[in-house]
């Protein structure tokens, strides 16, 4: 099997999910699965007027690539890509995009889910929410760790 094309981008600028999806597909892609995460706006006292994203340059890119490599080792993927924004974002703006291309939908769905679970629990990004009540760091959630724990170490490559 050919090596999957894996790409990671961490950037301040906005991105266009449609253009990213088009770039991911190839003639052999029977299935392209994508996920776009947006900044939640919240309401009332919990309203978010701005989301600030800090990261660890170097380790961020390295850990995202390691997650894509893990996914490509588990499932036969044609391509996988992550784009994650940093800096200041407004409510509703896309913050993260994951795209997976494969011959069939099963592995594309599974790999996209896997990549997001590990991105949320392993990649060194931190969110700070700004709103009417001031600014506060977002707390990590145990439910994210539980989701990531669903993926047992793969020994047979079948995931």
């Amino acid at each position: 099997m050919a090596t999957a094309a894996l790409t990671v981008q961490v950037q301040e600028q906005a991105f266009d999910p449609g253009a990213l999806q088009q770039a991911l597909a190839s003639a052999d892609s029977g299935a392209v699965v994508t996920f776009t995460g947006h900044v939640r706006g919240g309401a009332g006292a919990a309203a978010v007027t701005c989301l600030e994203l800090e990261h660890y340059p170097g380790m961020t890119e390295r850990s995202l690539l390691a997650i894509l490599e893990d996914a490509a080792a588990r499932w036969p993927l044609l391509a996988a890509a992550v784009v994650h924004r940093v800096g200041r974002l407004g409510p509703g703006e896309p913050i993260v995009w994951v795209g997976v291309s494969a011959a069939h939908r099963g592995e594309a769905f599974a790999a996209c889910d896997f990549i997001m679970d590990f991105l949320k629990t392993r990649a060194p990004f931190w969110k700070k929410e700004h709103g009417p009540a001031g600014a506060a760091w977002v707390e990590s959630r145990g439910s994210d760790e539980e989701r990531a724990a669903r993926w047992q170490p793969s020994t047979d490559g079948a995931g």
Partner: protein
Amino acid sequence: MLRVLFFARVREQVGCDSLELPWSEDRATVHGLLSGLCQRGPQWQAALGQPNLVVAVNQRVADSAARLQAGDEVAFFPPVTGG
């Protein structure tokens, strides 16, 4: 030298984002480095004494027993919240 980095809430609590410290026997492990940093004051103790503190050595998550060598990059940060 050791390059020491702090991120997010930890960075705000200690009031600095990086330090350069000479390597020494006292700083031969993550635990040793942490003990010295905690003596810098109550904010340092509060930030670095958190039970959920994450440590990375040369950009890989490590534990407090990890050995340190001159030239290593050590980072301290809270649990991640990206995505």
